[in-house]
């Protein structure tokens, strides 16, 4: 039995819950799991749109920590955005956007855009293609997976794909890659789960004969692969063309065709969704974020390559969101950006930035919490070439939370997809537990201190947490996990941990405390 069928059959049992018998509908906080169940019965038409920012986006020039301006100025004066040009965000005086991002600023202020600060993973890898593989496969840094997180998710929803697909219940491709190609993301345990399209107009009809059995050789394996693509393409093409033709009018808010590549692609995605294509996941991409050199125009740091890219992203995202509203499908669509890594705190001499670690992610849509999740990164006063932003949230926590609250994937299934248990984050709303303000306020209220700091031979870390699962880690300046001191369930209270300087090279280290959905980071300076 497929999961959705299971939910459909078991959902009526939920009516036995007394509060419902009394006519009270599910209220937030009653029982998140019941609410999720109820949602999934009706929300099978939910869509997730992923935007890949290829090359490694410079997060510090995208979401700017205004409260650390002097550290920013010290570390990256040649690419620094003038403080008075940073776009202000309602309710978050210490955080602002790059001046190119007016559209995203508007979405943010409307509560339709959420920032998740310093997303990354332990032991960051600085290779583009390895880190892209990590982000798409949702693996650990030192683990090589041959399937992607979206592929594994789709496999749980549509087991056995592609055998028996398309069929009457599932006439459409499960996922569509439009103007982007990240095959690993959609690689399921056994098959590729996505269809790649540049425009629905390209499909021609052609005839293939009755196939002979493929030989038991590598060539036979490849032949079978091509035959599957060929057969599915012929069937799916008709559906795509139909969906495309079903829509005759879209919002006029898009830039002129051909002027913003991403906007053009997003417009096509909106059209296909509105036209009735039942694909669950769309991927598109924006390329060129690998800004080692001339990230900005020298002396005019609000212009240049990075500014243009952010402008395309912002303008495209805003036009798309407005169009979803115009088309009446705003409730059904959630969007998310990701990039293989952020960039280094300190800029280089080529008015650019080198490969770094954590960076911000954006989630957009009507059904989100909005706001900024997490705190501004804490920058060292004198950043060196080795300083990277420490991770606040593991990217897999974001994926897991989206799967849980947007596609209502149950916990046990979620673990099978994400391969381990991740921190739950408030992103989708309405969904489950805590509000974003609550998480941020509570995170702020967590107590974590180290003394003596700077540490020479040793120090104490002291923290206070509510009851729950607690993790305490030490990261080096590059963002690599050095040691895990605590990783267990603890009662509410204050705890003290002895930290030994195990010949750590000197630098600005980070202690990271995780307590359920809450987290707090503090700098620990290692000195001699």
């Amino acid at each position, binding site marked *: 039995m497929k999961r959705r069928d299971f939910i459909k059959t078991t959902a009526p049992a939920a009516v036995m819950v007394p509060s419902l018998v009394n006519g009270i509908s599910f209220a937030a906080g009653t029982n998140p799991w019941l609410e999720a169940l109820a949602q999934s019965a009706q929300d099978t038409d939910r869509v997730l749109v992923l935007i890949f920012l290829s090359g490694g986006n410079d997060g510090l020039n995208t979401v700017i920590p205004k409260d650390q301006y002097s550290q920013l100025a010290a570390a990256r004066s040649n690419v620094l955005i003038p403080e008075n040009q940073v776009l202000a965000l309602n309710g978050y005086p210490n955080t602002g956007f790059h001046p190119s991002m007016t559209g995203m600023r508007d979405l943010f202020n409307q509560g339709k855009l959420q920032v998740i600060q310093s997303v990354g993973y332990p032991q960051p890898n600085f290779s*583009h293609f390895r880190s892209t593989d990590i982000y798409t496969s949702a693996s650990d840094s030192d683990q090589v997976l041959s399937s992607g997180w979206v592929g594994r998710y789709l496999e749980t929803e549509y087991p056995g794909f592609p055998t028996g697909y398309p069929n009457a219940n599932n006439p459409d491709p499960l996922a569509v890659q439009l103007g982007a190609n990240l095959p690993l993301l959609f690689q399921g345990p056994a098959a590729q789960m996505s269809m790649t399209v540049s425009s629905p107009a390209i499909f021609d009809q052609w005839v293939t004969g009755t196939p002979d059995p493929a030989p038991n050789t590598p060539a036979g*394996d490849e032949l079978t692969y091509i035959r599957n693509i060929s057969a599915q393409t012929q069937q799916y093409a008709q559906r795509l063309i139909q969906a495309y033709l079903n829509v005759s009018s879209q919002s006029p808010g898009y830039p002129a065709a051909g002027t913003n590549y991403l906007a053009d692609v997003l417009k096509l995605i909106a059209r296909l969704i509105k036209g009735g294509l039942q694909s669950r996941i769309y991927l598109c991409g924006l390329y060129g974020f690998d800004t080692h050199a001339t990230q900005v125009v020298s002396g005019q740091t609000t212009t240049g390559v990075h500014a243009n890219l952010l402008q395309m992203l912002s303008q495209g995202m805003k036009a798309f969101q407005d169009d979803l509203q115009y088309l009446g499908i705003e409730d059904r669509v959630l969007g998310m950006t990701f990039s293989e890594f952020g960039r280094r705190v300190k800029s280089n001499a080529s008015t650019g930035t080198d490969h770094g670690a954590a960076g911000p992610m954006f989630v957009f849509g009507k059904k989100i919490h909005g706001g900024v999740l997490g705190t501004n990164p804490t920058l060292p006063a004198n950043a060196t070439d080795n300083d990277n932003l420490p991770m606040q949230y593991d990217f897999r926590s974001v994926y897991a939370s989206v799967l849980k609250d947007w596609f209502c994937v149950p916990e046990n299934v979620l673990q099978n997809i994400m391969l381990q248990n991740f921190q739950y984050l408030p992103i989708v709303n309405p969904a489950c537990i805590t509000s974003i303000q609550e998480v941020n306020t509570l995170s702020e209220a967590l107590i974590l201190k180290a003394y003596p700091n700077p540490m020479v031979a040793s120090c104490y870390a002291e923290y206070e947490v509510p009851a729950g699962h607690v993790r305490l880690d030490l990261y080096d300046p590059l963002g690599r996990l050095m040691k895990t001191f605590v990783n267990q369930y603890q009662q509410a209270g204050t705890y003290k941990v002895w930290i030994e300087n195990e010949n750590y090279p000197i630098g600005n280290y980070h202690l990271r405390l995780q307590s359920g959905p809450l987290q707090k980071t503090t700098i620990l300076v290692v000195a001699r």
Partner: protein
Amino acid sequence: MNRKDFFAVLAHKGIRREEGSVKLLSGLDPYTGTWDTPQIAHLLRRTGFGAKKADIEQLRSLTPAQAVNLILTVPGSQPSPPVNNYNATLNDPNVPAGQTWVNDSVTNFNPLINNLRVDSFRSWWVGLMLNSGINIREKLTLFWHNHFATEANVVGLAQGIYKHHAMLRANSMGNFKNLTKLVTVDAAMLRYLNGELNSALAPDENYSRELQELFTVGKGPDALWTENDVKEAAKVLTGYRINLLTLNYYFDAAQHHTGTKTFSAFYNNTVIPGQTGQNGQLELDALLNMIFDTDEVAKHLCRQLYRFFVYYKIDATVEANVITPLADVFRQANYDILPVLDKLFKSQHFYDTLQLGCVIKNPLDYVIGACREFDVSIPSAPLASQYSHWNLLYSQASFMNMNIGDPPVVSGWPAYYQQPMYHEIWIDSDTISKRVGMADAILSNGLTGGGATILADPLPFVSSFQDAADPNALVSHAIEYMYGIDAGPNTRAFLKSYLLSGQTDDIYWTDAWIDYVQNPNQTTLNIVQTRLKAMFKALMQQPEYHLS
């Protein structure tokens, strides 16, 4: 019966099957087996673009070793460079029409003309692939372009793009270590990976990282270089600048990091002492010596060659039987490329019957291969027309995701590095539709664009067979010469049905063909031509045709 059932039957019959398909046990011992059309066409397709019938016939009289010797003998002279084919579009005040622009002074820079020159370069390159003789140079140049990837849209200047290309081409069969050094100080690469901005004050790690990760030691399980090695190598590489007039590099000692560079245990804790003045350049030799002293360089390159020329799956058996001994050959030859290719293409492994047809054609294989197999005619004059025909083929391959001159990223095309799909990435719903569309066009009204029309005529190919009147024989020949894999009775019957136009008796084709041969006129020609085009279109549109 689907594939799974088919394998289940095999398993039931006791035929061994592991990890997706049967295991290849063959190694690098010289191949001495059957030498017939499938083997010859295999060698030609893998080392060139498509297998022309005339080339197959020429190699038939040689031994496998002689055939490989011929293929590995690259022409001593370099082709004449691309020329001004664009003057009708935009007058070039500095280079007359028909003359080469590659030596034009960069001070004459005009962005519009520059774009036309980049187009001219790409068209010219396609022309070389299309007209290649029986040798590996074009395929090997493409291999190096994928390996040492640069993007024309980043490099910008057409003269620099050409210079970089000519360097890869001239050294395609040379010495890998030497080539790596040339690439390191090449103007296009210095621009592409920011080497020209790498300075002592703030080392730029871009080239240093890719030099190790992509170009030399790779990221194999034993390539244990560290982040610190990236930083240290970046310091060695500081100071190289581009002379914008000559497009040669020069060494700016003031920008060079003169401190000591210390490397990890992977590099035997090598220390490269800092040097001052022009001697700072000597550090590059020390760096390359250190890198090429590791075992990983040869292994990485052999894996790259294997994935490009043989197949993308490298299991433990292939690693032990092919990669490891091939890497030994490479090291013993001090990184000369010829001995490695010689060993590989003469090996039993390369001709293993289990291995034939397993490569999915890249877009250039598909587009240019088809043109060569049908010997399409392209006007050699006027020059502008010749270039626009080449350009049409370039844009077809580009539509299918292989834009020569502009691979998507520094790691090249994903088909050659992205696990687990590798070559399969070439085929998706989008690109397969475009391939099918091209087959349709080239065998119907013609592939058109930019004022050029390219038509494939199967008649000369078919006429070269004595028994073309027999539709079964004709289909067999077409499959044998044009498919990388044998086709079963269903496919044969399906293709034959186009020759018979739906009739069931072979005599209909036989009569039509004999009528045409004996009374060649427009009517009899049309009858066979229509059916042949339909048959070859269907042949190109079957999944089998994507295999090489």
